[in-house]
């Protein structure tokens, strides 16, 4: 089924975001409109300072827009209380961070299990089964008892992927997930994300600079100076990058 036929999971309408730095107002997003449909594997591309992270923060409900409407899973985020936003993040969205952001004092298993404990939906045996299933999928079942500092960067990011997916979120946001990894490991992480996107139907939105990473996306939203330039297919984006365009 064509993902575009379903209702969008993310809908952004005329969104602006300004940061107040003392007396100076810095516009990070200037009237962004976009829609992402369930099952899409979307890349947001653009140079540093183009507003990629700000856009992901708004979609991830960890920040609020200055103007405009951000709607996630059919809910206007501006109308939600802090508690409701937290619940929306917990039940609907998974996060993968550039620098992994694992809890250093917890084991791999406990890190992945953590969102399930916050959800309080599954009992201990069910949690264990779900966590181990994901650790197997990301190839880290044998490292369940390790602490994050005993893992390589690629392994840590795979733990982060497992943590993001453990609650079966409708949407996973990944901010430069391969930026801190070497190209081979980065490729593995993208392959893994793509595989999970295809198997589980999870929607992925990730930001990246890397043209090779972009190549896996269904579509690439190109961002510059806080505005969406265009929506390209992966191959179009590759060509655009090759000629030095944004």
């Amino acid at each position, binding site marked *: 089924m064509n993902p575009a036929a379903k209702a969008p999971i993310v809908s952004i309408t005329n969104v602006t975001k300004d940061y107040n730095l003392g007396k100076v107002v810095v516009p990070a997003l200037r009237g962004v409109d976009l829609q992402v449909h369930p099952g899409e594997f979307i890349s947001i591309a653009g140079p540093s300072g183009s507003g990629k992270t700000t856009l992901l*923060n708004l979609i*991830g409900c*960890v*920040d609020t827009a200055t103007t405009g409407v951000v709607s996630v899973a059919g809910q206007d985020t501006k109308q939600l209380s*802090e*508690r409701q936003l*937290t*619940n929306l*993040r*917990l*039940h609907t969205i*998974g*996060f993968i*961070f550039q620098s992994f*952001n694992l*809890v*250093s*004092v*917890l084991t791999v298993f*406990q890190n992945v*299990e*953590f*969102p399930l*404990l*916050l*959800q309080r939906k599954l009992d201990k045996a069910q949690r264990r089964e779900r966590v181990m299933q994901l650790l197997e999928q990301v190839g880290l079942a044998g490292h369940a008892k390790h602490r994050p500092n005993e893992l390589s960067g690629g392994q840590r990011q795979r733990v982060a992927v497992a*943590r993001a997916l453990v609650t079966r979120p409708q949407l996973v946001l990944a901010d430069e997930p391969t930026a801190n990894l070497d190209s081979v490991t980065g490729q593995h992480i993208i392959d893994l994300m793509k595989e999970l996107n295809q198997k589980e139907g999870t929607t992925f939105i990730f930001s990246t600079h890397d043209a090779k990473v972009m190549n896996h996306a269904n579509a690439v939203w190109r961002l510059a100076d806080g505005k969406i330039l265009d929506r390209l297919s992966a191959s179009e984006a590759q060509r655009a990058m090759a000629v030095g365009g944004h």
Partner: protein
Amino acid sequence: MLQLLLIAFRNLGTHRRRTLLLGGAIAGVTALLVVLMGLSTGMKDTMLRSATTLATGHVNVGGFYKVTAGQSAPVVTGYPKVIEQVRKDVPELDYIVQRGRGWVKVVSEVGSSQVGLGGIDVEAEPGIRKVLQIKEGSLDGLKERDTVLLFEKQAKRLEVKVGDTVTLSAPTLRGTNNTVDVRVAAIAANVGLMSDFNIFVPNSTLRSLYQLKDDTTGAIYLYLKDVAQVPAVQARLRQTLAAAGHELMDNDPRAFWMKFEVVNREGWTGQKLDITNWEDEISFINWTLTALNGLTGVLIFVLLVIICVGIMNTLWIAIRERTREIGTLRAIGMQRTRVLAMFVFEALTLGFLGTLAGAVIGLAVCLGINAADISVPEVVAVFIMSEKLNLAVNAGSVVGAMLFITACTTAISLIPSFLAARMKPVTAMHHIG
């Protein structure tokens, strides 16, 4: 919740040096509090045990008899009826004794001294045998008329030993001086301040010295099964004795001998009863306990403030170090209340483990001091009514001290924890530092 406790516990373990330093400080303050409370309780126990046997009951029915307005005697006339009434009104009673009370000059061949005189019926006094340690002679010697029990210090001052005779001289109710020769029947080990100004004679001797009737005594001492009942019994007796037609003095929480001046100034004559408790009768030395408790309070307060500042500072550092972690946890769906709980648990765990260690150390110190049988300087012995240092540890107080310090450290951690919980996820996630 278990996961939050686990995070708290492991974070404390990760920053071992910081945890040990702060936990050690908490343990030190707890241990100090336990030892000081042990000292205070020990002193109070010793004073209670010694004083309530030698100089007062738990509750006393004493009083004054005035022949004329300006001349009073510390006696209770018709005491058998009062005892009968008390027995009826006080079911909490363990036992009851009546003792003559007076102030005499003891004269030996080489010296003299002014002392308080206690008249006892030694066979009716089960408590006195437990408290007095007889060094020479026998307590049973006081069964005989015209005998006396002295303390070592007095015997030394008067240069007498068992079998020697001393003279007691005291003014009677009629204002004339009377004397009686008594034989030293027993010499007891000193018990602090009591040894300085107390001697005991049989009640019959005291009556003959003061020329009192058989139904007149100094005071009726009530010993209760539970000391905690003292205020209730005291209040009840005031009502029931008044209802039975006895005249009562206004409540004046001082020893009987401190009331002469006030009583002599008042215009009434005849008998008035005075109901006091053991603390009233030794109020003149009770200030030592108050001072020790005050000192303990000030010391603990200052140390607690230092610890609380330490806890706050440590949590600030921890929160600063873990700001990104807070942002991440908030982003993946942790509510603010749980972030708050996570840091409060950290302070709670540190406080609990620190106080637990402190309580164990404090208990060990108390037991060690008791086992070492440490003699205290004479000036201290005077006030604590014991020549040995005795630290009484009460399980309830130790648990109370632990809970109090843990509660303080936890409460103070609420401030940084609350601010951590208020952080915006986006700000926290992008924190650098």
